[in-house]
């Protein structure tokens, strides 16, 4: 329980959050440095996360806003270590890749290479957000970092900002994940209302199974599922492929989409309070597996295939969390690691292939293994990992998946088998389509930096398939955090006919069949895909957005475009509300008529004059008379002030009224006569005139009620007056008002004269020569 930052947890957080500004600063010096510095920072963060893991985790806890019970509390527990290692490790590899890829990308698009800095900075911001998110132990912090990742993803997806498609995709990702993030906040608020804390450990300890916890859990799960691109909120993810390839690789493996399942794992103790929620997760997981798998089989574009495969793969993870138990929770963690390694390698492969050939579609590619054998081998390892072939880390992910499904029942095992078969089919199609078969496209040589990260990831996938213990340890400690008690898992090769092995063999057979028998089912799959486009949620999103846009246009037309309606929409409801308030509250003795003494008679007379002058301002048609009547209102008020024992105010009022009258006349002189005449003699419809009079009357009535109500209740507390009167001699003055202005409430005066100074600046700008449009 260290309180300072000098422990692995604190250092990791600081380094991860400082990475983005550091890289941006380095990039300002020379754009190409941003990537290098960023990759080193990510590597450093990876090292710190690994150190933290070895050191057995650590935590920091700083009171941030103690009065509101908000604390900066972070813990580097098993779950956090796992995701932090992924975010920083894959982040570093992606940055190395990007430091070569992005300059080429910018060159193709004829953009300045300073844009590279933005790319790296936002990717690192993303990484920082992820690290903060996974370590946060407080729902408010989780929400903050959650949104930080959403913002970073918005800029990364929309990195090619000159392309409408990229901007629209970024907006879609932002809206879908950002609006659902509000659900997270609402869920947190519900929990706070019940338990008075945002701190997760306390919530886990105290939350019971109750309808409000279920509601809160469901809301937070919605946010997580939208971020993980689970059906039916999956449609933003394939659109997000508009981003440059390294972004996709990172989004899909270690950041954005992973954040969703991370949140589910983090909140699992709350979700597990309700069987309903877990069953909901199961349903959505299986649905996403099916939707993602079938659609992945129908896509032609490399990145689209991978995008739908991600939806399906995270469907697995959601299913495992829904199944729960030792194997479900630890298996989900294991699955995330295996998937992250394989999927990022495949994305980076897609980017490298497109860079080499200029082709994006499977149909236009083939036979590339002769040109790039190393890439083919490395990505083959990754593809085998995703397809869960033996000798890869992926084999164990499916083994755990089958075990978890078998524990629940044969139906689930059958569904799991179909899901695994689908993933073998689409991954196989992807890899075979690129590297085997007839050569269809010319390939340019590609830089080493585009191949090396893929090789590293491929080697890791194979290494994990041979020595699985480190990944198992990591997953078991993460699963223990999720499940709340130790989750020993023992994935290993068993050369016997146990059920999970049979399921695996069955999945390979079915997958291979799907791969070979493509002509049989492709028509059906395409029909499903078309149906989804016709009636799917993406269409709902478009309709909703279009409807909102039209609605805001309508409101704009009514309320904003016409100043008069706008004023009326403020005044009339206010008047109606006040009227209603008066009607429902008891008014007896609330309003004082107030006595009139003989000495008040002059004042009364002047008040009457003021009121008459006020009404008279509305009468004249020509502006000159109006200006003069307006001045008379001001002078009358000055006399009122003079009679009320306020000579200072009266003096200023007289002087200001004089100078304002001059200014008004000056501005009237500036406007041509015909403009003024048009305004004076334009026809105003009787109905409109009546409407204005009506609005003015009820507004006046509302002002009357408010003012009378306030004036009838003077506070008996007059000590302020006595105090100010007594203090004035001490402040070396005699005129209390002046002393208040310059001394007691001098800061008010300071603000006021600043306003005056700003007004003059505005005036100078507005009265400039020339026509502005």
């Amino acid at each position, binding site marked *: 329980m260290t309180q300072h930052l000098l422990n692995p947890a604190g250092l990791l957080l600081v380094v991860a959050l400082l990475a983005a500004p550091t890289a941006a600063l380095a990039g300002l010096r020379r754009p190409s440095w941003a990537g290098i510095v960023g990759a080193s920072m990510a590597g450093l963060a990876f090292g710190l996360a690994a150190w933290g893991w070895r050191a057995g985790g650590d935590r920091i806890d700083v009171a941030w806003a103690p009065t509101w019970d908000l604390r900066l509390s972070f813990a580097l527990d098993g779950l956090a270590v796992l995701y932090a290692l992924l975010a920083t490790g894959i982040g570093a590899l992606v940055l190395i890749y990007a430091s070569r890829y992005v300059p080429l990308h910018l060159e193709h698009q004829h953009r300045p290479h300073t844009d590279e800095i933005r790319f790296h900075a936002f990717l690192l911001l993303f990484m920082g957000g992820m690290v903060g998110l996974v370590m946060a132990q407080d729902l408010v912090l989780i929400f903050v970092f959650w949104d930080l990742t959403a913002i970073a993803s918005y800029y990364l997806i929309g990195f090619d900002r000159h392309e*409408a498609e990229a901007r*629209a995709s970024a*907006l879609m990702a932002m809206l879908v994940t950002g609006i659902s993030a509000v659900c997270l906040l609402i869920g947190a608020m519900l929990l706070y209302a019940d338990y008075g804390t945002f701190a997760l450990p306390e919530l886990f300890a105290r939350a019971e199974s109750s309808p409000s916890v279920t509601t809160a859990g469901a809301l937070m799960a919605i946010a997580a599922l939208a971020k993980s691109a689970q059906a039916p909120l999956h449609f933003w993810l394939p659109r997000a492929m508009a981003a440059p390839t390294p972004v996709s690789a990172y989004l899909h493996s270690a950041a954005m989409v992973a954040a969703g399942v991370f949140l589910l794992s983090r909140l699992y103790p709350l979700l597990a309070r309700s069987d309903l929620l877990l069953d909901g997760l199961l349903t959505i997981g299986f649905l996403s597996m099916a939707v993602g798998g079938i659609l992945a089989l129908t896509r032609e574009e490399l990145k689209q295939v991978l995008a739908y495969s991600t939806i399906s793969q995270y469907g697995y993870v959601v299913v495992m969390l829904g199944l729960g138990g030792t194997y479900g929770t630890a298996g989900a963690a294991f699955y995330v690691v295996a998937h992250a390694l394989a999927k990022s390698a495949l994305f980076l492969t897609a980017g490298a292939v497109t860079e080499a050939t200029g082709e994006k579609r499977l149909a236009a590619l083939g036979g590339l293994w002769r040109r790039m054998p190393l890439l083919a081998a490395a990505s083959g390892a990754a593809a085998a990992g995703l397809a869960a072939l033996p000798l890869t880390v992926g084999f164990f992910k499916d083994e755990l998946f089958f075990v978890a499904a078998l524990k629940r029942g044969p139906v689930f095992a059958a569904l799991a088998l179909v899901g695994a078969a689908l993933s073998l089919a689409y991954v196989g199609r992807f890899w075979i389509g690129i590297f085997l078969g007839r050569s269809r496209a010319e390939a340019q040589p590609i830089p080493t930096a585009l191949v090396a990260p893929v090789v590293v990831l491929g080697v890791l996938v194979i290494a994990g398939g041979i020595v699985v213990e480190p990944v198992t340890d990591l997953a078991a400690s993460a699963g223990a955090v999720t499940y709340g008690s130790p989750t020993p898992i023992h994935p290993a090769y068993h050369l016997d006919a146990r059920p999970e092995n049979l399921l695996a063999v069955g999945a390979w057979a079915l997958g291979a069949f799907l791969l070979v028998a493509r002509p049989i089912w492709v028509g059906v799959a395409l029909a499903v895909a078309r149906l989804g486009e016709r009636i799917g949620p993406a269409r709902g999103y*478009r309709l909703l957005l279009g409807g909102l*846009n039209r609605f805001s246009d309508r409101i704009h037309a009514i309320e904003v*475009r*016409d*100043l*008069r309606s706008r*004023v*009326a929409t403020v*005044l009339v409801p206010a008047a109606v509300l006040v009227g209603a308030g008066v009607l429902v509250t008891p008014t007896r003795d609330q309003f*004082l*008529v*107030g006595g009139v003494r003989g000495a*008040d008679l002059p004042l009364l007379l002047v*008040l009457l004059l003021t*009121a008459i002058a006020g009404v008279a*301002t*509305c009468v004249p048609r020509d502006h000159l008379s109006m200006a003069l009547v*307006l001045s008379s*209102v001001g002078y009358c*008020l000055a006399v009122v002030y003079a009679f009320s024992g*306020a*000579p200072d*105010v009266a003096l*200023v009022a007289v002087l200001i009224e004089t100078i*304002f009258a001059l200014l008004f006349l000056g501005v009237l002189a500036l406007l041509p006569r015909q*403009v*003024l005449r*048009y*305004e004076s003699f334009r026809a*105003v419809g009787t109905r409109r005139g009546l409407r*204005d009079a009506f609005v*003015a009357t009820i507004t*006046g009535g509302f*002002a009357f009620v408010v*003012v*009378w109500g306030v*004036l*009838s209740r003077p*506070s008996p507390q*007059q000590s302020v*007056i006595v105090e*100010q*009167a007594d203090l004035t001699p001490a402040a070396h*003055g*005699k*005129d209390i*008002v002046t002393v*208040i*202005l310059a001394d007691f409430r001098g800061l*008010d005066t300071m603000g*006021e004269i600043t306003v005056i100074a700003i*007004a*003059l600046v505005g005036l100078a700008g*507005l*009265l400039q020569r*020339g026509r502005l*449009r």
Partner: protein
Amino acid sequence: MTLLTSLTVAVLFGSGAFLVLKHDLIRVVVGMVLISNAANLFIMSAGLTTGREPIHPLPATETIADPLVQAMTLTAIVIGFGVAALLLSLVYRVYTSHLTVDLTTLGEAEERAEAALELEAQRDMDVEEAGLLFARPERERE
């Protein structure tokens, strides 16, 4: 007294509201000035005490008028003047830009300009297709 002061404030406020609802921008400014006058009178009459002017030496037998509301009203009057001057120059600027000070005419001009913008946006790209239902294309740089 309370009732009559409130009535005066209400009449000033109502007249101001009536003018603010006009088409003529100059009348709108006059309405704003009237409303701020009403507010000044309101603040002034919200004083806790009435009586003689609050200047030392204070009268021994009579009460003094609340000096705090006086200071506030004083400030409010000067700020009101500054804002009114700014509004007037805004009216003048509207005239130099649009050659009118009429809200209806201005509204029609805005509607026309907006329609033109919308047309331009639709020409530049297929808005519906891109799903970009409310973003306009950025202007080309340089």
